[in-house]
């Protein structure tokens, strides 16, 4: 019953972006179109197509927030492409499901991202104003204005950098369960606020929070090929990961090197484990709490492991090293 409810919750959000194979007819330097109730998409060509030239492209297209049938989505994209007079739909690649991933993994709470970027603190504005007023008054004295500018710059940078909690605008988490069926697939989830850039979208499930936010998809011929934007919203990209020979147990780390890690015992006490090297048993650690944005409402009564992978580890899950990849597992 619980599993059925979790599965229902996990499947509520519809994928908002799909890959479409289209044929473009020249003369054309690019196409752009709107999809009713979903957003817009654009194809930017490096070299314009000449008259009579035809070429096939894979482009990212937005899908409506409300889950519709594949036929209805195809009809929407066909109509949008028809409005450009330069392109026609060949095939709308169905959004990939997360087959084999347990409902518990899919229903886990997402990392809590900040709802905005860094912002100018009033204290820094005060420093800037005071420095500017003094430098205007002393503008004929070069040494004084130079020294003042340097001092104000350092002070403003310190105030911007040093005040306030760090804002998380992107997160990568590999969700897993320990001690379950051998070979059970994991779930790699990447969340990014506002914009998502990628070279592949066909084998991923892309959702948007809030689900009704309009999405603009730009496709280019050079890397990164796909750029998805939704101002004020968060993109959540999920894909299935096969564990292969990797495994993690208290006896041995056969997974990868962790820069930092934490463990919550079933009784609810957290321990900061620190670095956990490949091949080592779980270090003892000392009492300490993990970053709060990683542990929103995780289940009680079982152990929770959190680890930040070293750069270059598990690079099959995500492209690039920014932001770092976290591993979150229950039942270690």
């Amino acid at each position, binding site marked *: 019953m619980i599993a059925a409810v979790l599965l229902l919750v996990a499947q509520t959000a519809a994928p908002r972006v799909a890959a479409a194979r289209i044929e473009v007819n020249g003369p054309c330097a690019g*196409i752009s179109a709107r999809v009713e109730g979903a957003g817009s998409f654009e194809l930017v060509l490096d070299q314009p197509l000449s008259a009579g030239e035809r070429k096939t492209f894979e482009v990212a297209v937005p899908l409506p927030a409300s889950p519709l049938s594949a036929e209805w989505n195809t009809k929407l994209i066909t109509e949008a492409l028809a409005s450009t007079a330069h392109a026609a739909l060949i095939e709308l690649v169905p959004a990939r499901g997360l087959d084999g991933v347990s409902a518990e993994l899919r229903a886990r709470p997402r990392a809590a991202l900040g709802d905005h*970027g860094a912002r100018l603190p009033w204290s*820094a504005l005060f420093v*800037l104003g005071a420095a500017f007023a003094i430098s205007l008054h002393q503008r*004929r004295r*070069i040494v004084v204005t130079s020294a003042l500018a340097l001092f104000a710059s350092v002070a403003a940078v310190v105030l*911007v950098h040093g005040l306030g909690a*760090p804002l998380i605008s992107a997160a990568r988490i590999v969700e897993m369960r320990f001690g379950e069926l051998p070979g059970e697939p994991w779930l790699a989830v990447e969340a990014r606020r506002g914009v998502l850039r990628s070279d592949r979208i066909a084998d991923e499930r892309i959702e948007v929070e809030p689900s009704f936010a309009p999405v603009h998809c730009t496709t280019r011929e050079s890397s990164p090929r796909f750029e998805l934007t939704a101002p004020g919203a968060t993109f959540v990209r999920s894909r299935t990961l096969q564990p292969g020979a990797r495994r993690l147990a208290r006896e041995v780390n056969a997974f990868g090197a962790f820069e930092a890690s934490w463990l919550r015992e079933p009784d609810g006490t957290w321990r900061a484990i620190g670095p956990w090297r490949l091949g080592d048993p779980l270090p003892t650690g000392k009492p300490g709490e993990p970053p709060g944005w990683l542990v929103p409402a995780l289940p009680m009564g079982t152990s929770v492991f959190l680890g930040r992978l070293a750069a270059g580890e598990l690079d099959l899950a995500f492209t690039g090293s920014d932001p770092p990849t976290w591993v979150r597992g229950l039942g270690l």
Partner: protein
Amino acid sequence: MRPPASIVAWCASLAPLLLERAGVLDFALAGPAAAPRLGLCALAWIALAGLPCAGSAPREPHSWWGSAMASLPVLATASALDVESGAALAHAIRTAIWALAFVALTGLAAELAHRRATSRGVHAAVWLAVFLGAPMFAAAFHFGARASAFPFPTFVRSLANSSPLQWSLHASTGAASPYTAFAALVVLCALAAHFGRGAEA
């Protein structure tokens, strides 16, 4: 740059940061290779520091250096905000140094040109045609002729890239090469110095 222009530049350069603070602007869409706050802040300083002056305006020696120093705290703050929001540190520092150099050089060109009527004319013509006009021409092509059958002309892009204003706009959206704009500014300074030689007129 005289005090009224400095005040306008200071207010204009802080406007993007204050609008972002108020939630009107959102620079979250910029990638790690972009410095959106720094690019927009530098735009105001570069535009006003290099603005051609009227011949009747009183001359202030070393005002170009004063302009650069007045812009430094704002540029440093914008750069720090970019880094805090995910921009690469090395890229943000490099962009800030280039922005400061452009503010100083545009101010220096305006100050060198101020000495004589000929140099003022040459400076004003180059500034308005190349540094201001070319980016606006490019923007007109970009936004006005975006139809798929009209690709962006390469010569317009090349001309616009010689403007430090275009560089700061590009820096706000992604990586931008500063070398063309730097070379153009050095040439402008040399022209202003050449035509501005001799007694003031």
